[in-house]
């Protein structure tokens, strides 16, 4: 049986999590280098999730898989980024790589939400190591408008 733990979270108040949801970012998130551990909260059905800091209740990020709104999004990173989270082989990539981008949702205008395509979050789900990497594609913006992208591409279906 998976052991559950109760934590305080920014979006849901008290919430139960398991150790399987705990992701370690050895370099933290840029601007928040001191917080290295986050729970991936999947209470919402998706495509949005919360990344909740374990040590600061007030620190949490909304994340989304970028392919959900931009199907041609590519992770253009250096091999070292993947080594850093223990992804070494092609098999590792296929089986264990998760990737997200951080979303900013303005409180007074949620429809104007933006995603940071330049600094994707990569996670190795087998060892639960994560990293905010820097994309080598400088065309990617840190404030890419999600709804405008969908209008343009129709989600690329």
């Amino acid at each position, binding site marked *: 049986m998976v052991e559950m733990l109760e934590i305080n979270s920014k979006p849901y108040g008290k919430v139960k999590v398991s150790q399987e949801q705990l992701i370690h970012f050895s370099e933290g998130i*840029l601007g928040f280098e001191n917080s290295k551990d986050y729970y991936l909260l999947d209470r*919402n059905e998706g495509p*949005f999730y919360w990344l909740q800091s374990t040590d600061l209740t007030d620190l*949490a990020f909304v994340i989304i898989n970028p392919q959900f709104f931009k199907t041609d999004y590519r992770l253009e990173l250096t*091999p070292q980024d993947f080594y850093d989270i223990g992804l070494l082989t092609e098999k590792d990539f296929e089986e264990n790589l998760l990737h997200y981008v951080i979303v900013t949702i303005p*409180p007074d205008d949620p429809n104007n939400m933006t995603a940071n395509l330049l600094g994707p979050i990569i996670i190795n789900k087998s060892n639960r190591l994560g990293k*905010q990497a*820097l994309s080598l594609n400088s065309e990617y913006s840190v404030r890419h408008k999600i709804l405008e992208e969908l209008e343009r591409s*129709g989600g690329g279906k």
Partner: protein
Amino acid sequence: MGEENNYMLVLARKPNQSIMIGDDIEIRVVDIKGDQVKIGITAPKNITVHRKEIYEEIQAANIDASKTKGETDLDKLSKIIVKKKKK
């Protein structure tokens, strides 16, 4: 990025002169034109090199993102984007 702990070493270099950082990172002034300097960097594969502005942009975006309200209705936003996706 650790600026508060580190001193800045300032060196004068001419085009084609280099500095070494440790044993294996070489920074060379390739060319100078007006107010722009072209810099060549030779470093081992495990060293990543990015323009500082990129760190600063991502940092600023992360700080904004951290201000997203905990009460944000993600299920509602999900519905909006799922609907747009189907259109």
